């Protein structure tokens, strides 16, 4: 069974400037079809000038984050008919510079990750590059951070966060969550250095537990939880 659904898609051409506008497209939809399939249909059959970013089409690469009916989601992970709407509004994510149409520039997210040193820190660099033994972890040690490794860096949480929207210097959910992921890793030796990095005005203190990050995360990562646990460490001083 094929249904007609109206896609109201945000359009923006950098060379035109301005605020951008919405353009409507009629898309025939079958069961199982995703928002991304709809956008690709528009691009192939109606309007080839539409820009969308995607790669894996299976919720793994984290390229296709958009806002669908005012909620952040992966375009490839959202089925059109499950939304049960005749009109579907597709917009780019918030809190990122806009490149074109639905494509956003993710630089702020990656810059903040870098500022928080979201990688494994070891004191002995020689040993880290050429390890001489195994570094085993118990099941418990793994569970402490495992949930946070499921992140695909789609940046949806960063777009949903009301604090990033109003106060763009805030590190935001994903970078702080990533910092906690390493802080909680028994192999990591970042320790106090990590707490010092997030214990700033722009750090954990700007989180007010609005939970929007965890509400939209397509991977069940729960950045809000990680931030509270990070704040707990910072409060202990």
């Amino acid at each position, binding site marked *: 069974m094929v249904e007609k659904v109206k896609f109201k898609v945000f359009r923006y051409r950098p060379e035109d400037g301005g605020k951008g506008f919405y353009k409507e497209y009629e898309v025939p939809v079958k069961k199982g079809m995703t928002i991304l399939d709809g956008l690709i249909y528009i691009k192939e059959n109606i309007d080839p000038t539409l820009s969308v970013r995607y790669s894996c089409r299976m919720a793994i690469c984290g390229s296709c984050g958009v806002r669908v*009916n*005012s*909620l952040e989601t992966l375009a490839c992970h959202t089925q059109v008919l499950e939304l049960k709407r005749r009109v579907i509004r597709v917009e780019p994510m918030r*809190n*990122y*510079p806009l490149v074109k149409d639905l494509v956003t*520039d993710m*630089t*702020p997210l990656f*810059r*903040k990750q870098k*500022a928080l040193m979201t990688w494994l820190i070891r004191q002995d660099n020689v040993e880290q590059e050429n390890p001489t033994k195994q570094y085993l972890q118990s099941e418990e040690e793994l*569970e*402490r*951070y*495992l*949930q*946070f490794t*499921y992140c695909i860096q789609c940046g949806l949480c960063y777009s*949903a966060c*009301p604090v990033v*929207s*109003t106060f*763009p*210097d805030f*590190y935001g959910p994903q970078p702080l969550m990533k910092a906690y992921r390493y802080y*909680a890793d028994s192999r990591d030796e970042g320790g106090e250095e990590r707490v010092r990095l997030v214990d700033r005005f*722009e750090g954990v203190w700007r989180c*007010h*537990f*609005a*939970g*929007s990050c*965890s*509400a*939209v*995360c397509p*991977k*069940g*990562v*729960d950045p*809000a*939880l*990680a931030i*509270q*646990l990070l*704040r*707990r460490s910072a*409060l202990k001083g």
Partner: protein
Amino acid sequence: MLARGVSRSSVIQSLKVMLIPGRYGLERWSYVLQRVSGVVVSLYFIAHVLETGNFVGGITVWSVPDYSFAERAYEETVKLLKNPIFDAGLAVVGFLVALHTINGIRLVLAHFGFSLGRPRRPEPFSPPPSFSSKQRALFWLSISLAVFALLYTLDSLMKVFRP
């Protein structure tokens, strides 16, 4: 610094983000309500300090005044404050104080890492551990007590629920 390349929102845009919870769910509502109640109760607090100051004679008085002066100051303040608009305002403040306080306790617990679930392997369709049932229960408790405070104050002030 960190926000290089991102244009800052106007204050109006920011207000919209702060005041409209959208479709993000309960915790986002809590964020909006905690902010609104915080601001309104703060304004009430400032007004309350000024108003009680007037009860004892206003800003020019810095030691215990004689009784007749005090009586006059008192009567004037009462005249100013005794009207249904302030009564209704007080009921709203009662609602917001109850909400902010209980929700505040919930947030203190959360910010210190208590009453949240533990990190666990993500499972489809299960809510994030930070949206724990303890946290949710405290939120609804704050709403319940706020509604109770509202009804109770209205009843005391305007006898709405009495024959």
